[in-house]
């Protein structure tokens, strides 16, 4: 299917899909907190625009509502909440060190190829003009997951989670012109609740460890349990006596 044979609107959908993918990559490598939140908001905005374009092309009116919901929630409310959180937790100037950023990005590119590969059968089934973007939405989801699995701070993980949800939403929009509205409302509500829960989780995390680095959670595992502090000096003194 040649791109030039599509209508300008369909081309624009594809363009915005590519930009959504791009924002996923930017988030993957963004080490500073506030730009990370902004990038997330941008992704929401681009997705909302793509949704409106899909609505125009397909004539499904309920997609306008989905788009509006996306703007309100993912461009407005959630980023604002996260921003507030980061200010209150005093981490809006924090940066996180990523070990091998270029390898991470190459891995991301590998995920895109992989999602293209697994999306091929679906693409062949679908007759929609936007079917090629299915691979992109799967990639956005996988990139969100990758972000959650490699990034250290809780904030980055939450944003990875949210962007996974973005991928899901986008997949629904481009493959079947959106889920039933009630489902979308439900998911949106879930995400809302999740972001509030995450806020609570942040505070607990900081209270317990003085940091938002989730690496500290390793301490909770029994295998890594540090030896009780009281006993260690006692044992060594016993050794000396013997």
């Amino acid at each position, binding site marked *: *299917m*040649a*791109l*030039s044979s599509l209508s*300008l609107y369909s*081309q*624009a959908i*594809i*363009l915005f*899909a*590519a*930009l959504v*993918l*791009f924002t996923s*990559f930017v988030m993957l490598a963004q080490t500073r907190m506030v730009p990370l939140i902004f990038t997330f908001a941008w992704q929401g905005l681009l997705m909302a625009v793509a949704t409106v374009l899909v609505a125009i092309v397909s004539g499904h009116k309920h997609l306008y509502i989905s788009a509006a919901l996306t703007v309100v929630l993912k461009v407005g409310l959630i980023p604002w909440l996260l921003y507030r959180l980061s200010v209150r937790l005093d981490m809006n100037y924090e940066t996180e060190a990523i070990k091998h*950023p*270029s390898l991470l*990005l190459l891995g991301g*590119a590998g995920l*895109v*190829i992989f999602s*293209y590969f697994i999306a*091929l059968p679906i*693409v*062949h089934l679908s007759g929609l003009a936007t*079917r*090629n*973007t299915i*691979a*992109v939405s799967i990639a956005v989801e996988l990139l969100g997951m990758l972000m959650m699995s490699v990034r250290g701070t809780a904030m980055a993980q939450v944003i990875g989670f949210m962007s996974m949800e973005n991928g899901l939403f986008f997949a629904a929009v481009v493959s079947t012109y959106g889920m039933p509205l009630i489902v979308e409302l439900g998911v949106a509500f879930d995400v809302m609740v999740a972001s509030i829960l995450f806020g609570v989780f942040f505070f607990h995390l900081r209270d317990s460890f003085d940091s938002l680095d989730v690496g500290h959670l390793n301490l909770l595992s029994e295998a890594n349990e540090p030896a009780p502090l009281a006993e260690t000096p006692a044992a060594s003194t016993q050794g000396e006596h013997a």
Partner: protein
Amino acid sequence: MNSQSIAWTLAAAQTLLFILAAPLLAGWVKRVKCHLQNRAAPAVWQPYRDLAKLIKKNLVLAENASWLFRAVPYIVFGATLLAAAAVPLIAVHLPTSAIADVIVLVGFFALARFFTALAALDIGTAFGGMGASREMTVAALAEPAMLMAVFTLAMTAHSTNLSVATETVLQAGLVLRPSFLFALLALLMVAVAECGRIPVDNPATHLELTMLHEAMILEYNGRHLALIEWAAQIKLMIYAVLIIDFFFPWGIASEFSASALSVGVLAVTAKLMLLAMLLVVWETVLAKMRLFRVPQFLGFAFLLALLGMLTNVVLETGG
């Protein structure tokens, strides 16, 4: 005069125009930059005066400069001139554009860079070594990004020939290609790095910590320096024209009539002026970055180019 010889004459004229206009572009960039930064601006033809003055000056060579040092300016200028000949400036399908495709063009720049770096090492000063080392590192990182961006474009045009690629874009009309958007951004970043502009290199400074290109040519003077500076100006123009040809070719002459050619000249002048202003804004708002931030900058360019290629496969041709 048959059509073949007309074409060759036009090609020669275009090349001549290219190399003669390059200092003008540099002068325009400098002038706009001065205006933007509230400084008194030199005339746009100041670079011509500089070149003329340098050519007239007597030559001073370092005591242990070898024959290579004296030959390098001519090699660099020759390679850059060849590259300029291959790029369509006002008309496509000139015979010179068949001499070299984009990959050969990259090869010409690599040739010029290779010899500039050697000349930098010839005297044996630490400045030269530093410049050569840094320049080769930056180039090594810029080249894959450049090639990847070019590949993305070539995949759509099914050609690496500049004329053919330009014409393909021209005939396709307005198509919103995400791959082109990414490739454009990548190519802009690579162009900035390759031409030694801010934030990768600062062409206006002689501080040892910040120099790349300037450190390499520190020992040059007189006509040698004139040739090298001129080559650098041509290189900047080549990159600008490349970007114009690939992404905004509208207006370029596809036949050799007087009206089409004059439209071509006007169009390319206007586009070059605009692009130069964009460069000036970019250079004014950004600061020179640390050397070891440059790999990240170029890595980002590579990522953009890679995304361009991926979207080309996934979104534009897949399914």
